[in-house]
């Protein structure tokens, strides 16, 4: 017996709205379809009406977890358009925050993976230790989520020696904890039983479907923008690209924990080699007509911004591609022939960050069992009719 189960747009496993429609045969998924658009904010259109500087803060709000990624990707693109070179200290600080953000994002993801697998203790512990990174970020930038540290031509805040020392001290603690989590994630029998061999994505599929980030790296594709196309100061920083050959959720956990270790090393390198000097240069208000493609390795994969200027103080076009969108086609392949129990894990394993759009509500008719997708306008109409028919509240004044 085949039947379709809607997972989302509202579902306990999904923290953001997206609709996965699963065609099931018993406990086995035969097909999956992803519908997007519950969260579309028309940001690319909005960006065309804002100035170069305002757009930093617009792009920062694309995502709550990798806010720095989008802002940095945009900023380094615009700096190329304006032909300005940020000072070295500014670059170092910018990517210090970037690596701290990667640490916080990966720790967050580890916790979410534990929660989706029903391992709440793991979730509580990783999130407790994530607070250490959040505190560092707050100390460096003044904010916990939207750091707002980027500006055109550098960064907005400097750090002093005391802060530097505090970050280095916290790194020791984080390293120890991450090693512990690696031990648990790769050894706890019930957890490994849940994630090993689940959500297989072969190397060929990952290549054909253009998977990015840890999803691709867990399928043994050594793809990392920081290595392939070094931006900022990554050409001078020693680090390795973490890959895994197991092509499953376990591989994605391993890749992320390995990346955590690499990030700690990068942070240590950046702090120990922090050059002196100013943190920012003045940026012009306008950019010459030109176009630029800016790439950035966000915690979830490659961010790419295409920016075109037309000589004014506003962009002609800003195209944003978030890494999660690139991983959706691969997710459908991963879900096929899996179990229902694996849906949250597989879906969480791409670390979804939903920021794209469409509005629909699925209603199931109580009597006939007929399922239909109702448009928002239709739903509003129904609600309006119902409101009209409601006898008592009809004459009430809104708000009550």
């Amino acid at each position, binding site marked *: 017996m085949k039947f379709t189960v809607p997972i989302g747009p509202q579902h306990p496993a999904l923290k953001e709205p997206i609709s996965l429609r699963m065609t099931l045969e018993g406990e086995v998924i035969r097909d999956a379809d992803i519908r997007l658009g519950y969260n579309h904010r028309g940001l690319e259109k909005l960006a065309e009406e804002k100035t170069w500087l305002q757009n930093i803060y617009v792009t920062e709000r694309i995502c709550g977890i990798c806010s720095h990624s989008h802002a940095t990707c945009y900023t380094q693109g615009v700096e190329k358009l304006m032909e300005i070179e940020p000072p070295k200290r500014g670059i170092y600080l910018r990517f210090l925050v970037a690596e701290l953000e990667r640490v916080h994002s990966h720790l967050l993801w580890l916790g979410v993976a534990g929660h989706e697998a029903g391992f709440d203790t793991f979730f509580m512990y990783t999130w407790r230790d994530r607070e250490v990174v959040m505190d560092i970020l707050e100390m460096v930038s003044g904010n916990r989520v939207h750091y707002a540290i980027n500006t055109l031509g550098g960064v907005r805040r400097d750090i002093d020696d005391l802060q530097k020392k505090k970050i280095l001290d916290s790194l020791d603690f984080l390293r120890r904890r991450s090693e512990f989590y690696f031990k648990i994630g790769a050894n706890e029998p019930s957890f490994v039983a849940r994630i090993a061999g689940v959500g297989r994505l072969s190397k060929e599929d990952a290549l054909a479907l253009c998977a990015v980030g840890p999803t691709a790296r867990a399928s043994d594709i050594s793809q990392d923008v920081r290595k392939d196309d070094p931006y900022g100061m990554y050409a001078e920083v020693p680090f390795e690209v973490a890959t895994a050959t197991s092509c499953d959720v376990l591989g994605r956990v391993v890749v992320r924990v390995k990346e955590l270790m690499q990030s700690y090393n990068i942070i240590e390198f950046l702090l120990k080699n922090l050059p002196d000097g100013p943190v920012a240069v003045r940026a012009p208000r306008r950019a010459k007509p*030109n176009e630029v493609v800016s790439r950035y390795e966000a915690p979830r994969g*490659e961010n790419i911004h295409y920016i075109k200027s037309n000589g004014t103080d506003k962009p002609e076009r800003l195209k944003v591609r978030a890494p999660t969108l690139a991983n959706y*086609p691969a997710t459908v392949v991963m879900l096929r022939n899996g179990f229902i129990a694996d849906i949250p894990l597989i879906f969480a394993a791409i670390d979804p960050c939903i920021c794209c759009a469409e509005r629909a509500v699925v209603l199931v008719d109580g009597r006939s069992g007929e399922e239909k997708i109702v448009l928002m306008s239709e739903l509003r109409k129904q609600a309006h009719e119902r409101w009209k028919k409601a006898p008592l509240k009809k004459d*009430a004044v809104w708000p009550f």
Partner: protein
Amino acid sequence: MNDTEIIEKAKALLGDKVLEVSNPALRRIFMKVDSKDLLKAVQVLKDDLGFAYVATISGLDGGEDFEIIYHFANAFSQLNLRTQVPKTNPHVESICAVIPGAILYERELQDMFGLVVDHIPDSRRLVLPDDWPAGNYPLRKDWKYERPPEKIPGEKS
């Protein structure tokens, strides 16, 4: 394989199909082909130059025509394949036959610019709501959003 080698090889393989090519920065190549040669060019890029990964597809409203930019990347470089279609007849061939991972970007292109992607495997809307009025394409330059006047139920007029 560096940028000049890639450009040389692409020119050799595609011949006069390459309309213009530039290399404004390290690891950034911009190349232009005619829209009818697009599929062939993508095939060559994928098979012979290793550009199997399409990062995204950007659309651009250039007044008279639409410009479509396919952003490819491999381990050595980043290549942007540009093509143009007239606004009066906005048809472009789907590249999903060569690179299946491009499907979502092509659907987004259809939504946002009103381009028609021929032979696309799945032409449903991606980001716009299902009750979005037909003929409205948000990222076209002449499209302006008009917010409907807000009506509060029970409000005194």
